[in-house]
C-alpha cells in the first residue's frame, strides 16, 4: 500500500572501520611519542615494567616509575574521564558543542579553588575537591537557575554556560590582579599541568573518576530518550528534568575533581566526543565508548606535546592546558564543517515570544542617556579622591586635569560606542541575540595577535597595536566568513566559530601566564582594559574615526532591517545579501578592533549595550543603533571612572569592571526574559 520508491533495503549499519583505526593510530602515536625519550635509557620491557615496579640501582628506572608512568596514567585517566563526561553532556543537552568546559563547570571549579586559596586555605588542606566541586556546582547551579523556566533549552544552556565561564574567568583575573602575590602559583596550576613525582595523585584520583563514570553508564537508557526531544521523552515516561539533573551532577563531580587535582584541562571533553562522532560513532553506546577512548588518547598526546615543548623550549613550563586548547580549537572548526544541521538542534523550536516588546520614544531615552553621559563626564572630570580625601575640581581648572582624566575617559566612552554599534550590527546580521564581538571571537582574534606580539618581544607603538588588532579582528572575521559561507552566515555557526577562535586566544594567554614575569602582568592589564595607557592624540584619533564610521552606518539602516527576515526574503526584496553581509561584517570588525585596543577583548559591552537598547524599548534598527552606542559609551565611561576610584590610589582595569558588572546584568536579563 505504500508506494514510496527509491531506496533499497540496506543492512544493519555498523561502525565504520575508520573509527577503530583512527583511535588506535591516536593511541599508538601518543604512546610512542611519550615513550621515545625514555627508550634511549631503558629497554621497552623495562619501561613497561615501570608502571608497577622499578630497579633501585638504575636512575632512569626510578625516574620512569615515579615520573613518567604516573604522568601517562593520569593523562589517560583524566582524558578518558573527560571524554566520557563530554559525551554525556552532549547527550544531555542534545548539543554537539556542549562540554564541561562550555558549561562553565571547569571555570567554576577553578574559581572555587581560587576563592578557597584566598579566604579559606584550611579547606584546601582538608580536601581540595570540596572547593572545586562547590565552585563547579555554583557554576552549573547558576546555569540551571537561569535556564530553569526554559526547560533547559540546549542553546540557552550553552550560551548561559559560556557567559558564566567568561564571568568567572573575569572574577579570577580580578583576584589575580588584586592579590597576585598570593596566587602566583595558581597561574600554572590554573593552566593544567600534569607533572607528577609519585603515584599518590593517581591513586587518589582513580576511584573519584571511576565511580561517576559507572553511574553515568547506569543512566544510559534514559539519556538515550533525551535524543527524542523533551516532549517525546517525557511522553515515554522519562523524567526529563530529573535525568538531566542527575547526569549533570555526575558530570560536575567528575570534571571538578579533575580540576581540583590538575587544573583546567580544557576542551578534551569537547574534542573527544566531536572526534568520535565525526569518525562515525552513531549510537549513544558507541559514542560513549569511543569518546572515552579518544579522550584518553588525545590527552596523552597533548600532554606529550606539552612535555616536549617544555623540554625543547627555553626551559619554561608549557602547561598541558595550553596544548589541549591548541588541539581543541581545530577540532571545533572541524566539527563546524561536519555538522550541517546544528540549526535543527532538538528543543530549539521557535516558540512565541513570552513578552511583548514595548516601544518607547527614542528622544526621551536618548535624552536621558545623554544627560547621564554628561553627568558622568562632569563627575569624572571633577570629583575624585586625592591623597588627602575627596575634592572637587572646578570647570575653570579642567584644562589642568584633562591630561590625567580626559583622554582615558574619552577613549573609554568611544570604545563603548564602538562596541555598542558593533554588537548591534552583529546581532542584527546574525539574527542571534547572543551575537556580539566578544562572543564571536572577533575581540579574541584581535587579542590573539596582541598576545603574539607580546610573546615575540617586539616593541610596537600604539599605532602598531591598533594595526595588529585590526588585522587580528579582520582575520578572525575572515575565518568566520569562510567557515560560515557554507551555512550562509547562519547564526549558530557563527557563534560556534567564534568559540573556536576564543579557544586559540585562551591557549596563547595560558602560555604567557605560565611563563610568568612582567610580560604576564602587562598583558593581563591590557587584556582587561587599562584605559590609563591612552594618550590624548590617540583618544582624539579614535574620536574622528568613530565619527566617520557612524556616518557610514546611516547608510546601512535599511539593509539591516531586511537581513533578519532571512536570505530568501531579503534577496527577493532586492538586497545583495552576501555582499551586504560582507561589508557590514567588515565595519563590525574595524569597530571591534578599535575598541579592543583600548578596553581589551572581554568587556561584554558589545553584548549588553544592544540588549539594553531593546529593553529600553528601541526595537527598530536605527533607534537601537543610536541607543546602544550611547548606552555602551555610558557603561564604559562609568566603568572607567569607577576603576580610577575604587581601589585608589591603585587602579583596576576598566574593562574588567565592565565585564563584572556586565556579566551580572546579562545573567539577570537572561533569567528575566528567558529568551535572552
Amino acid at each position: 500500500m505504500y508506494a514510496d520508491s527509491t531506496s533499497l533495503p540496506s543492512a544493519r549499519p555498523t561502525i565504520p572501520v575508520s573509527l577503530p583505526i583512527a583511535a588506535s593510530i591516536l593511541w599508538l602515536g601518543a604512546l610512542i611519542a611519550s615513550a621515545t625519550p625514555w627508550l634511549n635509557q631503558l629497554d621497552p620491557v623495562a619501561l613497561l615494567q615501570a608502571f608497577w615496579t622499578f630497579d633501585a640501582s638504575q636512575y632512569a628506572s626510578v625516574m620512569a616509575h615515579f615520573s613518567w608512568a604516573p604522568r601517562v596514567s593520569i593523562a589517560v585517566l583524566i582524558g578518558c574521564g573527560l571524554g566520557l563526561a563530554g559525551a554525556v553532556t552532549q547527550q544531555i543537552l542534545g548539543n554537539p558543542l556542549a562540554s564541561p568546559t562550555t558549561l562553565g563547570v571547569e571555570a567554576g571549579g577553578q574559581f572555587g579553588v581560587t576563592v578557597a586559596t584566598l579566604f579559606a586555605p584550611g579547606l584546601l588542606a582538608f580536601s581540595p575537591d570540596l572547593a572545586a566541586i562547590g565552585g563547579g556546582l555554583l557554576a552549573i547551579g547558576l546555569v540551571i537557575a537561569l535556564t530553569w523556566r526554559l526547560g533547559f533549552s540546549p542553546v540557552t544552556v550553552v550560551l548561559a554556560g559560556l557567559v558564566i565561564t567568561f564571568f568567572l574567568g573575569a572574577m579570577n583575573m580580578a583576584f589575580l590582579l588584586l592579590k597576585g602575590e598570593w596566587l602566583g602559583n595558581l597561574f600554572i596550576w590554573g593552566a593544567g599541568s600534569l607533572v607528577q613525582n609519585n603515584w599518590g595523585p593517581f591513586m587518589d584520583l582513580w576511584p573519584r573518576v571511576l565511580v561517576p563514570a559507572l553511574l553515568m553508564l547506569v543512566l544510559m537508557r534514559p539519556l538515550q530518550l533525551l535524543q527524542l526531544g523533551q516532549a517525546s521523552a517525557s511522553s515515554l515516561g522519562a523524567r526529563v528534568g530529573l535525568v538531566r539533573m542527575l547526569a549533570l551532577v555526575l558530570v560536575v563531580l567528575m570534571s571538578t575533581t579533575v580540576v581540583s587535582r590538575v587544573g583546567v584541562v580544557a576542551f578534551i571533553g569537547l574534542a573527544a566526543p566531536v572526534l568520535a562522532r565525526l569518525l562515525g560513532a552513531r549510537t549513544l553506546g558507541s559514542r560513549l565508548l569511543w569518546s572515552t577512548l579518544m579522550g584518553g588518547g588525545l590527552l596523552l598526546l597533548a600532554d606529550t606535546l606539552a612535555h616536549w615543548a617544555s623540554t625543547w623550549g627555553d626551559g619554561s613550563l608549557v602547561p598541558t592546558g595550553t596544548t589541549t586548547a591548541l588541539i581543541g580549537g581545530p577540532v571545533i572548526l572541524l566539527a563546524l564543517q561536519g555538522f550541517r544541521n546544528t540549526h535543527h538542534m532538538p528543543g530549539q523550536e521557535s516558540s512565541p515570544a513570552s513578552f511583548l516588546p514595548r516601544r518607547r520614544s527614542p528622544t526621551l531615552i536618548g535624552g536621558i542617556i545623554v544627560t547621564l553621559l554628561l553627568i558622568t563626564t562632569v563627575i569624572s572630570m571633577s570629583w575624585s579622591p586625592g591623597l588627602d580625601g575627596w575634592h572637587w575640581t572646578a570647570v575653570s581648572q579642567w584644562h589642568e586635569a584633562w591630561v590625567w582624566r580626559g583622554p582615558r575617559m574619552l577613549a573609554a566612552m568611544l570604545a563603548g560606542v564602538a562596541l555598542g554599534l558593533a554588537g548591534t550590527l552583529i546581532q542584527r546580521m546574525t539574527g542571534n541575540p547572543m551575537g556580539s564581538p566578544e562572543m564571536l571571537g572577533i575581540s579574541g582574534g584581535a587579542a590573539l595577535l596582541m598576545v603574539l606580539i607580546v610573546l615575540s618581544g617586539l616593541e610596537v607603538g600604539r599605532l602598531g597595536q591598533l594595526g595588529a588588532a585590526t588585522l587580528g579582528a579582520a582575520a578572525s572575521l575572515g575565518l568566520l566568513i569562510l567557515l560560515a559561507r557554507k551555512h550562509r552566515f547562519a547564526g549558530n555557526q557563527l557563534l560556534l566559530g567564534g568559540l573556536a577562535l576564543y579557544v586559540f586566544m585562551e591557549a596563547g594567554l595560558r602560555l604567557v601566564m605560565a611563563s610568568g614575569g612582567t610580560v604576564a602582568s602587562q598583558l593581563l592589564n591590557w587584556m582587561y582594559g587599562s584605559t590609563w595607557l591612552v594618550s590624548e592624540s590617540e583618544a582624539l584619533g579614535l574620536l574622528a574615526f568613530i565619527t566617520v564610521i557612524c556616518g557610514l552606518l546611516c547608510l546601512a539602516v535599511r539593509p539591516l532591517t531586511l537581513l533578519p527576515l532571512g536570505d530568501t526574503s531579503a534577496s527577493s526584496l532586492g538586497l545583495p545579501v552576501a555582499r551586504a553581509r560582507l561589508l557590514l561584517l567588515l565595519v563590525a570588525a574595524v569597530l571591534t578592533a578599535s575598541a579592543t585596543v583600548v578596553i581589551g577583548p572581554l568587556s561584554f559591552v558589545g553584548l549588553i549595550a544592544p540588549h539594553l537598547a531593546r529593553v529600553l524599548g528601541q526595537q527598530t534598527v536605527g533607534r537601537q543603533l543610536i541607543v546602544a552606542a550611547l548606552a555602551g559609551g555610558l557603561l564604559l565611561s562609568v566603568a572607567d571612572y569607577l576603576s580610577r576610584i575604587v581601589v585608589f590610589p591603585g587602579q583596576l582595569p576598566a574593562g574588567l569592571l565592565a565585564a563584572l558588572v556586565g556579566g551580572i546584568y546579562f545573567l539577570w536579563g537572561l533569567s528575566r526574559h528567558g529568551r535572552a
Partner: protein
Amino acid sequence: MSAFFKVSGLGVRIGDAAILRNIHLEFREGEVTALLGHNGSGKSTLLKILARQMSPSCGDVSVLGTSFHHTGAREFARTVGYLPQHPPGTDGLTVQELVALGRYPWRGPLGRYNDEDHRLIDQAITDTGLDRFRHRSVDTLSGGERQRAWIAMLLAQQTRCLLLDEPISALDVKHQVETLRLVHRLAEQRELTVVVVLHDVDLAARFCDRLVALKTGELVADGRPREIMDAAMLESIYGVSMGVMERAPGQWVSYVH
C-alpha cells in the same frame, strides 16, 4: 463505552490570556476523535494537557478514572502515547533504534529487552510499512516516512491511546490520506483511543468517529461527523461562511463561499 479521558472544569491561562476556558469533555475508549478549530483556538494546548506535557491552571483530568496527579511517569507512558507537532531531528538514529525507544516505558532504565519486546518492535515496523527502511537513518527519510517511523515508535509503546498533534500538516495529499488511513486501521485493529488535532475538516470527517471543535478556548461543537458537517455549524467554528456537500454516505466536501 467507558470514558478514557475525563476532563472537567479545565482552564489554562498564560499570563493574562486565557487559552482554554471551562472545558468539560469525555473521550471514550476505542474512539477516534478529531480536535478542530482555527489557529489559536486552544486545540494543541488541550492535547498537550491530555499528554501531560502541560499542567492546567484549574480543573482536573483523569485517565481511566485515575486523576493525573496520581499517575507515575512511566505508568502514564504505558497508557498514553503522544506525538508532538514537530518531532525533532533524531541525530542519526535508525528506524529500528527509534522504534525500540518506544519500549522504554515498559523496561525502564536497566531492564533487558526480551523476545516479546523485539517482536513488538518488528510488528510496529511492519504495521507502518517501514520494513524496507528498518536500517535507514530517520533523518534521511521523506516527511511521510519519518512521520510513520514516529507513529511506529508510539505503537511499540503499546499504549491504549494515541495523541497526535497535526500529524499530517507537512505532508502531501497522498501521504496525508495514507497516514490517516493507517491511524484509522490501527485504531480499529488494536481498539485504540485516538485524539488527533487536524486542520482539514473533510479528512477529519472522513476518518474520525467524532469531531470536537474549539473556538477561542471554548468548546463550540461536539458530535458525530454527520452532526458537525453542516454549513451553519462550520461557519460558527471557523467564522467564515461555508457550504457542505455530501457526495456519498460518509464523504463530505466543505467549501468556502
